[in-house]
């Protein structure tokens, strides 16, 4: 009898094991849903998969009278727009500020403690301030996302800049590099894979802020829809929407991971 940590599954077994929890959750839901529907056919809490499907088909293919839009696509478009704008601005801010502040000692001494303090402000606590300052429109939602994740990305990039060995920077100088050339030729390329990872880690938080902002005030969006139909206990909308958001988040994460592998092959070598 070996120690339990010395037993590892074979690849085929590994796949089955990985699928097991998903199948289990699904089976439990179907079982419970069927049991409830048998007692009360109009039960709203645990609708059957058939009603999920019909609801989603309705939302994806029929024009809603109030907004004259295909609701599912309209909500997705609005939420993704907010998410991408917020993430994009945060990544750009993180890259520029993180590199400049991380690389220039005087700026680092000035701003590092400030960023550290700033990143501890709970973004949702200042949401009312953002609504007052930027109104109830799109601007305040995007600022909320940036407020929420940019400080994290900035600090992460700064740490990566600081982790570049001093020898490399000295070497670059003995090869005649100017500050700009060191930033563009040594620091930036080595920070990019970390920035992508950082954005991947921020995806969850970014969705949180999108949905929180949409829940409070919006004309549309995935979070808005979920909070709107909550009043009618419309689980047949809420659950598929949650799965849809999860799927979108997974796809974005996957795309970013592929991008990192394709664009920065040298970073992968180091990992193996």
């Amino acid at each position: 009898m070996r120690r339990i940590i010395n037993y590892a599954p074979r690849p085929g077994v590994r796949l089955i094991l990985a699928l097991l929890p998903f199948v289990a959750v699904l089976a439990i839901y179907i079982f419970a849903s069927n049991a409830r529907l048998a007692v009360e056919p109009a039960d709203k809490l645990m609708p059957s998969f058939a009603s999920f499907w019909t609801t989603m088909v309705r939302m994806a293919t029929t024009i809603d009278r109030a907004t004259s839009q295909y609701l599912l696509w309209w909500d997705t478009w609005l939420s993704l727009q907010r998410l991408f704008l917020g993430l994009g601005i945060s990544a750009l801010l993180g890259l520029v500020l993180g590199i400049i502040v991380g690389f220039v000692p005087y700026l680092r001494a000035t701003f590092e403690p400030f960023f550290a303090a700033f990143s501890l402000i709970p973004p949702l606590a200042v949401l009312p301030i953002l609504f007052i300052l930027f109104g109830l429109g799109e601007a305040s939602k995007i600022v909320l996302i940036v407020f929420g994740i940019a400080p994290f990305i900035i600090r992460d990039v700064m740490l990566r800049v600081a982790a570049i060995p001093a020898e490399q920077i000295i070497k670059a100088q003995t090869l005649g590099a100017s500050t700009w050339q060191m930033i563009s030729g040594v620091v930036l390329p080595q920070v990019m894979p970390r920035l992508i990872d950082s954005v991947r880690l921020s995806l969850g938080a970014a969705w949180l802020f999108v949905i929180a902002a949409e829940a409070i005030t919006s004309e549309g969006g995935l979070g808005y829809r979920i909070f709107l139909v909550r009043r009618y206990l419309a689980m047949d909308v809420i659950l598929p929407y949650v799965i849809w958001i999860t799927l979108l988040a997974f796809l974005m994460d996957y795309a970013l991971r592929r991008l990192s592998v394709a664009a920065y092959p040298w970073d992968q070598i180091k990992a193996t």
Partner: protein
Amino acid sequence: MTTIRFENVWKEYDERVVLEQVNLSLADHEFLVIIGPSGVGKTTLLRMLLSQEQPTRGRILLDGEPIASEPTADRGVVFQRYSVFPHKTVLGNVMMGPQWAGAPLLGRFFGARRRALEERAMALLTRVGLGEHAEKYPAQLSGGMQQRLALAQALIMKPKVLLLDEPFGALDPGTRKSMHELVGELWEENRMTIVMVTHDLPEAFLLGTRVIAVDKRRNDPQAPERFGATIVSDFEAKCRSVRESRAFETERERVRLTLLAGNSTTEDRPPVPAIETALVKD
């Protein structure tokens, strides 16, 4: 011609004296090796020559001029580790210096200029034995190969002085031996000045033409930080006149042999192995 002079150089950190009264003058085409116990300030000496650190007193002259107060292209360096850029291929690493010098904004050459530089870099890579690894990334190379790459990367800038900070410290004995040969040959071919720090005594005397030992001359047991280290001994390991006469004899022998072989070619090789044999001029 490259000469280095240390004029009464001191290095102190607050109360602690690391180096004191360092005086040294180094002629052209020397291979200076600095030895001494660990933590005594050998590397500090090298760092000051590199301008990675500033002396607290005294000054360092390169060709009679005080050295710049930050690292510049006239002093190349190879560290024990991390001297190459992990995000560039082997060829890309070697091409970095000239591209930075020639393209201030983009740091990148295009077209004919790029091809010329690629050719030059490849010649140099072949010289250090990395010809067939040009497209690999440093992480795919062994420790010895990375150091060869770091050497090529520094040499393409044709520095006046090449500084080596325990460059072979992390290598296994076999690799170390072949690196010794390579560095010795490159030093001959390029007729440059090399300053190397090591704690390996046989290595020091194998490579160095001049070996200096750095240690504390005085020690106060109550206040060990009171006195710093300085040059305690200075050996001329390979006498200059012997070296030069040997080079001359080798050259004469070579010319004699070519004349014997067939006095047809009008070879105009310079009397000593020239700087430009490996480095094709731009």
